[in-house]
Structures are given as C-alpha cells and as structure tokens.
C-alpha cells in the first residue's frame, strides 16, 4: 500500500545535498531564534533574581527625605501584629584605611549597618565564613581587591576596625567596583552589625531605613502609615522589584531579535527557493498524478507533508542547538559585567516557542509553492517544457514597483525600512543583470571563456539568483545599519548625557547641602556654577495595567540646569509649575502605558497623589526611567524638601583636583562624586562590547545567506547537468567547469555585497536624517564592518560556489549526459 509519508521522504532525500543545505538553513534559523528567546528570558530571570535578592522578603519599607531618622518613629509599625519580620539599616560613608597610596575617592566605602545579618529580609549568598552579627560582610570583589579573607581585619579611617566574618557573592545591596580605576567614581559597599556602626558613628538611635514583612494583606497598614507619616520627613513605600531603573537590557534585545528575525527570513527564503525549484522540477510528476485522478489538494498535501517532515527534522536539531547557543550567548553577555553573575537557563517556554517557530516558518514560506504544485495544469505541463518564463511586461511591473517602494522609503516613517528592503528585493534581479554585463570583461580576463558563460548563466534563473543576492544584501544592509547605530551610539549617548546631565559633576551627600557648602564649592578654582538637585527615591507608582513600579523623581527649576530635552521646554516648565504635574522620561512613559494628559498616581512622602503627565522628555538620567517635577511642587505637594545632590559646572578639566578637594572638605558626609565623563564611560562601556558581537553576527548572517547561495548554485547546477555533460564532452576541462560555476557564485555574491552596501548606506543615510532618531545617528559609515562584509561575502560566496562546482566536476560525463 502507498504510504504518503514514505513517498514524501523519498522525494525529499532524492537530492541529498539540496536537502542538507535546506535543513542546515532551517536548523540555523530555528537555533538563532531559540537562542535569542532563551537568552532574553534567562537575562530577565537573572536581573529578576538579583532584584529579588535585593528586596528579599520585604513588603514595605520606611525611609526619610532626611537621610536618617529616629528609630522611635517606626515603633508603632513594629508593634503591629501583622508585621512578622523587620530589618533596620543605617548607611554611613567611610574610608578604608589602606597601606597603599590611594586617593580618598578610591578608598570611599559605604557601610550599611543592619540589625540582623541573617534576617529573612536580607539574602546574602555566603561564599566563606558565616553571618554572625559580629563582623563585616564583604562582597567577593572587594575582598579580592583588598587582599583580605575571613578573619582578617579592615580598618576605617577615623571610625574603627572590624574582622571580616563572611565573604558573599554579588548582590545589588553590596554592588562594588572590582578595580581601583572604577573605585575612583564608585564607592565600595560592606555590611556591618548595626550596633557596631552606631558605636563608630555615635548615631545611637538613628536609622536610614527600615524594611518589614507582613503576614497577610498589608494594604490597610500601608494606608494608615502613609497617612500618619504625612507632614513628617518619614514616608512609607511598598517594596517593589523593578530593575528598569538600573538596566536597559530590553534595548539590547531589540537588536538581537532583529537579527533573529533576519535569520528566520533568510532561512525561510532558502526553504522557499528549495521547495519552489523542487515543485518546478516535479511538475510532470504532479501532472501525471492529476491525470490519474489526484485532486489539487492531494497534490498540495504531498508537498505539505514533505515540508512538514523537513520542519520536524529542522526543529528537532535546531531547538537543542538553540539551547546550547543560548547558553553560550548568556556566558558571553554576562561576561561583560564586572562580577560573576550566576544564571539558570530558562529554556522551557523559549524552547516551546522555538519548536512552534521551527515548525511553522518553513511551512509559511512554502505556502506558495505548495499551492502552485496543486495548480499544475496537466495539459500545459505535458505539452511544454517545465520551465517558467517571465514576460517582459512582468519585469517592467516588478521594476516599477521596486523603484516606487525605494522612493517610498525616503518618507520619514518606520515602515519606510520595510519599503526599502522590499524595493531592493524587487530590483535585485536587474542589478544582477546589470552587474553581470558590467563585470563580464573582468570575468573574461580572469576566467576566459568560462567567465563569459558565467555572466550569461546567472541571468538564466534571474529571479532565483537575484533573490539569492538580495537575501545576502539584506543581511549585510541590516547589520551595517545596526553597526552604524552601535558606532554612533557612544557619540549620541555622549551628546544626550552632556545635554541633560545638568553640569559636569554630580556630588552626593548623606546630609542636605547647605548654602555655605555651595558657596565654598563655588569658590573652588574652575567651578563656575553650583546647583542643588533634589531626587526623591524610591517612589512607587502603578502602570495603567496595575503593575507596581518604582523610579526617581527629580526636581527641576526654571533657571536651573536642564535635565531633559523637550521641544517646548519653556511651556513645559510653566505647566509643571501650575498643576501637580510631571514630565516622564521616555522609558518611564512607555512602561506606564498611559497617554499625555492622563494622570499617574505616585506614592509620595505626602501620601498617594495624582499628577498629570504633561509630556515626555528625553533624558540620560536612569536611561529615561525617571520623572521630573517642578521643585516647588515637589516641596509643597509631593512632600520632598531636601537636596542631597549638587550639580557642578566646571570650566576646566581635569576634575581630579576638584574631586580631591570635595572629599577633603566634606569627608564627613560626602558619599559620591561623579563626573559627566564617568557617567558617559559607564553607559558606553556596555556598548563597546556590542560591536564585536555584531561582527560575529555579521559573519553568521553572511554565512547563513551563503548557505542560500550554495543551495541556489546547487540547484542551478543540477538543473543543467546535461549541459555540463555536453561541455565536458566537447572538451571543457573539469577546471573550466569549476571556474564557470565559481564565477557564477562570485557574481551572485558580488551583487549581494554591492547591493547590500548600497542598501545599507541608504538605510544609514535615511536614519541619520530621520526626525524619529532625533539626531542620535550621524551619517557615519561603519568601514570596518563594510570591509568585513566584503571579505566574508566574497569568501563565503566562493566557498558556496566551490561546493557546487566540486559536485559538478566530480560527476562523470556519461552520468551528466544521461541525467540530462
């Protein structure tokens, strides 16, 4: 009995090389997508893990806009029966007493004294030692940098000394620099017993914050104390695990998803090419089937089963490969962080989605050939040669639409990118035709007569060869655009930060800045302006969908430093002063999910308050995950009075003298001195690793596109084995045949590369002119990537062509003649 599955399997395996290349493309496409999904979900988990570790089991916390507050204030909360656990903490800036010659800024350390080191409200992954509430808890990088171990003593200038009782893994609570260079702008962090820190500082009844856990629903308690704390310097906030303020990894994944999408598109095209050619080759077979009574749907079904089989095999190999790639990718991605991040692969759901994509995309891309197979006309197929012909009218229409789409691409709209790519695909066959004519003399010089034949042969299957080149081109163009963005990003970020930083230096203190402090700083040589900056943090709020989030609210003043950019800044300032309103940063606005004019509800120190969102500002502060409020409104309505930050404008570098002077003059309460350069460097350092990653991606995408080239050339070769046999019979040597096919591959590759470079440059140009990008991308060509695209494109096209040429030259003449 006939088994349709067995027949499909036989059909598929008839041409093993073609099957191999098609499967390879499917496997890689599925693997890329799966790995990206896994990496995305795992990264989310990693950041969530560290965020959860930071918040531990706490439900609420009590803080103050005075930095510290009397412990008595929280007694009523601790007396509440539903409060099951609590943790008191006091932060104090100090300096390591070191034998080496280190600057004050390098020795700066923030000691957090906690009431119970083993509290369930603290998660401290101990590497060595124990949490004994007697000694210091030090993160591993700090212990390594200081060369200290458990039991060793650490001295703090002017305070005292204590032994290290435990060394712990990275946690957000103890995030510290891992080298002395970074220590210049970032303080170390260690934990100490609260009693010990109080003893050292004399702040016997003071705490910086108190976290607590409740049994059951704490809403009523929260509302009561939110009410009770109104008008005081203390306020209560729910503990929210929201890492958006500290990382912008989502933007990175947009890049990688784009590349994964591109891989699926390229793989899909290879599948389409393969199945379409197979259908054309087998038109006679389908015609016979139909003449014997098979219906259109049963013929289509046969091809569909072949694709389903192939999709199953591709998925079965692609998904496990994707899991492995995802792991590699995670290692590479997390390797850029200063500390060793631990992660557990989140592979279940991404793999399931990978399976669905792996099964569906080959079928989606082969829908047209499947339909076309069923539509085979018995009479026409029996009568005519099984070759498709394109009328010149169809060519003109295609070229016309190609040009129209390219022109549409000049409109400043995100859809324009799709229009340009679609236009380029339509025009590629003509580019190939033009280029083959143009390159003919060069090919004749290098390859003699086989070169002439090659330049003609590529125009025989013009659409197929043109599309193959187009796929390579799109791969190159998209990667070039991404590279240009990555290369331009540091400059764009530099501009963004400088224009919204609010000065050149930001100085943070544990105590509110006084007028005399500012006067003193203003008298420093090189300091031209000093502005106070009030930052209320953490402030919790709800998204439109009801999710709790937290960010910082920054105070702005009419004549103060500009912390954001907005088209109508003056108008925005006026409106911020009038009603209780806020201006949101771009990411905060996107996360909130509302529209301008709607109100956002914030848990302010003065209780729950509604603020009208009057606009979206572009800012570098917390990568846009922030809100801005008029300083007066912030004081009166919001309930935040103090400024712990100062923004300094400095007219000459280096900043080191000023930094040292600040640490010397305000060592009792200074907690951080950061320059605009520090901020730029820390923001752009993550991007510098991106370019290398894009280099790898570029080679992978070109490699994938070259599988398409290999597949196309193989199909072209197999379709004309009889011709190759004739050539060989008439005296063409194997080398001449090989050269001809190599030249064909090179022509397709060159068209793809040149077209890709041209499309890429066009995309970069239009993006640089786009209002949507707001001048973020300058028209700057990524020369190194362009060079790599040329080298990788030529090399991989030659490799692809070599595979086909080898197959052709290996076959003996009788077989070639017979197969024809």
């Amino acid at each position, binding site marked *: 009995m006939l088994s349709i599955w067995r027949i499909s399997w036989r059909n598929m395996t008839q041409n093993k090389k073609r099957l191999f290349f098609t499967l390879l493309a499917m496997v890689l496409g599925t693997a890329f997508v799966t790995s990206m999904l896994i990496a995305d979900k795992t990264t989310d988990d990693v950041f969530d893990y560290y965020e959860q570790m930071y918040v531990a089991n706490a439900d609420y916390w009590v803080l103050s806009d005075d930095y510290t507050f009397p412990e008595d204030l929280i007694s009523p909360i601790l007396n509440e029966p539903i409060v099951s656990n609590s943790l008191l903490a006091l932060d104090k800036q100090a300096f390591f007493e070191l034998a080496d010659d280190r600057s004050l800024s390098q020795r700066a350390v923030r000691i957090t004294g906690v009431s119970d080191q083993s509290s369930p409200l603290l998660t401290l992954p101990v590497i060595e030692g124990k949490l004994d509430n007697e000694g210091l808890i030090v993160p591993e990088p700090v212990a390594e940098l200081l060369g200290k171990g458990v039991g060793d003593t650490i001295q703090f200038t002017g305070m005292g000394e204590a032994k290290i009782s435990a060394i712990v893994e990275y946690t957000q609570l103890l995030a510290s620099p891992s080298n002395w260079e970074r220590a210049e702008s970032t303080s170390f962090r260690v934990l100490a017993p609260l009693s010990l820190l109080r003893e050292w500082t004399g702040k016997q009844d003071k705490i910086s914050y108190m976290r607590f856990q409740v049994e059951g629903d704490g809403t009523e308690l929260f509302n009561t104390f939110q009410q009770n704390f109104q008008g005081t310097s203390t306020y209560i906030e729910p503990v929210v695990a929201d890492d958006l303020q500290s990382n912008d990894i989502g933007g990175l994944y947009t890049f990688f998803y784009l590349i994964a999408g591109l891989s699926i598109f390229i793989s899909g095209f290879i599948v389409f090419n393969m199945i379409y050619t197979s259908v054309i080759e087998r038109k006679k077979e389908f015609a016979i089937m139909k003449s014997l009574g098979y219906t259109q749907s049963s013929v289509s079904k046969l091809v569909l089963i072949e694709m389903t089989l192939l999709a199953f095999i591709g998925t079965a190999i692609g998904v496990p490969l994707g899991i492995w790639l995802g792991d590699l990718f995670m290692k590479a991605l997390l390797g850029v962080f200063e500390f060793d991040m631990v992660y557990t692969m989140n592979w279940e759901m991404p793999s399931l989605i990978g399976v669905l994509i792996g099964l569906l995309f080959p079928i989606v891309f082969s829908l047209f050939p499947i339909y076309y197979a069923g539509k085979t006309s018995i009479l026409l197929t029996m009568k005519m040669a099984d070759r498709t012909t394109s009328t010149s009218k169809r060519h003109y229409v295609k070229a016309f639409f190609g040009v129209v789409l390219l022109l549409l691409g000049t409109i400043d709209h995100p859809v324009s990118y799709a229009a340009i790519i679609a236009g380029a695909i339509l025009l590629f066959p003509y580019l190939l035709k033009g280029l083959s004519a143009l390159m003919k003399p060069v090919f004749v010089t290098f390859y*003699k*007569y086989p070169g*002439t*034949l090659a330049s*003609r*042969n590529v125009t*025989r299957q013009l659409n197929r060869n043109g599309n193959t080149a187009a796929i390579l081109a799109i791969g190159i163009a998209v990667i070039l655009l991404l590279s240009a963005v990555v290369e331009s990003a540091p400059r764009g970020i530099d501009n963004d930060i400088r224009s919204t930083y609010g000065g050149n230096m930001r100085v943070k203190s544990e105590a509110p800045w006084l007028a005399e402090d500012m006067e003193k700083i203003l008298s420093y040589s090189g300091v031209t302006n000093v502005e106070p900056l009030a930052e209320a943090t953490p402030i919790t709020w709800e998204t439109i969908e009801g999710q709790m989030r937290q960010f910082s609210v920054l105070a702005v003043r009419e004549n103060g430093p500009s912390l954001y950019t907005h088209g109508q800044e003056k108008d925005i300032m006026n409106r911020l002063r009038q009603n209780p309103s806020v201006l949101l940063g771009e990411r905060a606005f996107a996360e909130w999910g509302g529209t301008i004019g709607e109100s956002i509800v914030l848990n302010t120190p003065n209780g729950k308050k509604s603020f009208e969102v009057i606009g979206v500002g572009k800012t570098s502060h917390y990568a846009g995950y922030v809100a801005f409020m008029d300083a007066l409104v912030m004081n009166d309505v919001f309930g935040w009075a103090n400024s712990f930050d100062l923004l300094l404008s400095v007219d000459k570098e280096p900043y080191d003298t000023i930094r040292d002077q600040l640490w010397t003059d305000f060592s009792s309460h200074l907690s951080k001195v950061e320059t605009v350069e520090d901020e730029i460097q820390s923001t752009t350092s993550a991007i510098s690793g991106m370019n290398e990653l894009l280099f790898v991606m570029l080679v992978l995408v070109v490699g994938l596109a070259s599988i398409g080239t290999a597949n196309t050339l193989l199909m072209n070769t197999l379709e004309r084995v*009889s*011709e190759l*046999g*004739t*050539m*060989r*019979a*008439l*005296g*063409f*040597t*194997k080398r*001449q045949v090989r050269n001809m096919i190599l030249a064909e591959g090179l022509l397709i590759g060159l068209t793809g590369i040149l077209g890709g470079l041209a499309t890429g440059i066009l995309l970069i140009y239009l993006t640089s002119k786009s209002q949507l990008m707001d001048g973020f991308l300058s028209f700057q060509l990524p020369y190194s990537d362009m060079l790599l695209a040329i080298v990788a494109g030529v090399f991989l096209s030659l490799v692809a062509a070599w595979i086909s040429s080898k197959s052709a030259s290996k076959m*003996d*003449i*009788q077989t070639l*003649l017979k197969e*024809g």
Partner: protein
Amino acid sequence: MIEVSNLQKEFLNGQESTQVLKGVNLNIEEGEFIAIMGPSGSGKSTLLQLLGGLDVPTKGEIEIDHTPIHAMKEKERTVFRRKNMGFVFQNYQLLPNLTVEENIAFPLHADGKLTKENIEWIHELTRSVGLEGLNDKRVNLLSGGQQQRVAIARALANHPTVLLADEPTGNLDRARAEEILVLLSTFHRKNKQTIVMVTHDIFAAGFADRIILFKDGIIDQVISREDSDYAKYLANFMA
C-alpha cells in the same frame, strides 16, 4: 586510423558487475563511415563513449591515429577530445543559453582559439548546414531538425579526426532524419570525414560504408558496402 583491440568494459552496480563489452576488436580506416547497430544493451553506445574518450575501458586498447587514448589521464583525454573528436547526440545536447553561432563555436572557445580564420570557418559551417541567417538566434527557438544541424556543425568545428554520432536521427521524423543523414554523408564524401554512428535505424545505417552488428558485447557481424549481399541484407533487415 582507429584500432581497437580486445576492448572490454565492465560496470559495477553495487556488488553486481555487468560486462557490457567482452573483447571487441575493430579497425576503422580514415575517411570511413561506420554504422554500429544492435539491440539495446548490446554495448554499441558504450563502444562509442570509449572511442570518444568519455570513459575508459576495463581492459584492452584504443588507438586513434596511433595515439593510445585508453592510457590517457582524464585531462589529457579532455584535451584530445577537444582537438580530435566531434560528437553528435540523439537529443542534440545544445547549450540553450547560446546562439546558433556560439554553440557551433563552443569547442573552439573551450580551446581558447577563436581566431579570425576560425570565425570564418564557423560562418562557413553555418552556411553549409543550411542555417545561414540564423546565426544569432537562440537554439531553443529552433526546430528539432535545425537543432541537429547545429549539433553537426558544432561537431565539425574543430576539424575532428573522427565524428562520433549517437543515434543522430533518433528524435527526428523520416524527412528530417534523411536531411541529417544526407548532411553527414556529404561531409563524409566531400571532406573524407571519418564518422562512427550508432543507430537503431537500418535506413540510417544504409548511408554507411560498413555496418557493424553488436550482440551481447561482441561484434556479431560486419557488412560492408563492397560485400555482394549488402543490398540484399539491408532489404531483408528493413523487411
């Protein structure tokens, strides 16, 4: 001219081997027109392929103009074929992407010797096969008879020592077949062109000087035009 001695060819199909030629001895004189006939699988096409250097014998020797082609390496055979052999195939085997003239000139292109004289020779060949005016036409737009004329012209382009034709009229109707045979015969007579033709068709074989009948991989019978019963033999065969 062509000397074949104890020619044997064995094909392996997995574990099984099939001996297609079982020791063929044959001499063909310069300027002779030979027709090889025989039932399917008798080895006639294999002999033609071995004579053309498209394949190598398992055993035995082939000398063309005292050149032992059976001992040649692949590349030497290709170059020998390019310079000394002309092929005409049953299904024409033209290169569809090339024009009439380009197809005819193909063997000279392969040799990289398209001189002014050669171009003139190609034009002359085009005229002589009756395709004048069609020089720049794509071959896939021609009729079957015209395509086979192109194939004959191409086979003669390199002034071959031997023209090997494998069922040259197999795809043509009688009228077109006769035109092709007349054409071959004309070249044979006018230019003393040596022709070895494999055919199933006794009408086609009738144009040859000698008919060699193959059976089970060996030569069963040789009938020469000089033989007294040649005409009778043909008549009987046709009947």
